[in-house]
């Protein structure tokens, strides 16, 4: 019963990631894609933890931990680049 519920919750998370992937592929601006990637990271975190609980090994939970830490680093870099690009565009538009 518990195994069936864990499997079903994994499929629910996979189903939730489908519209997020559509937004990541078709999103008009880069900020839309960044938010979609962030939501996808959260869904993947839940998926990894659910699969780790299902397998019952402690090593499987480390993957979720490491992905969450290093994924945040990547999102931070993308968000910083986005901020710099937006300020460059606004300043360039005013000066030129």
């Amino acid at each position, binding site marked *: 019963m518990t195994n069936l519920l864990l499997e079903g919750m994994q499929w629910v998370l996979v189903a939730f990631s489908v519209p997020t992937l559509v937004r990541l592929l078709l999103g008009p601006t*880069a900020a839309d*894609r*960044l938010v979609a990637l962030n939501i996808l*990271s959260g869904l993947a975190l839940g998926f990894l933890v659910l699969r780790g609980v299902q397998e019952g090994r402690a*090593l*499987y939970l480390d*993957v979720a931990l*490491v992905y969450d830490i290093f*994924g945040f680093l990547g999102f931070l870099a993308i968000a910083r*680049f986005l901020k710099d690009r937006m300020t460059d565009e606004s300043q360039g538009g005013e000066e030129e």
Partner: protein
Amino acid sequence: MILLFLVVLIVLSAYSVFTRDLLHGVIALSAVSLVSALLFYILQAPDVAITEAAVGAGVSTVVFVWAIRSTERKKRQ
């Protein structure tokens, strides 16, 4: 579930190759790394998934964004 992840992987890789904006390509590449780590995880290789998550999602995204930032300013001048 493995087949679904493989299809998503191919779609995201094709998008990251064929897109015009470099930042969109980097975001799609980060998603490719995420789905790839999930695939390794499902195939019961958690240590490979840890390495993929650390290197692919974290370090390579930072390096690519750094490269884009330091090349775009030369093009504008």
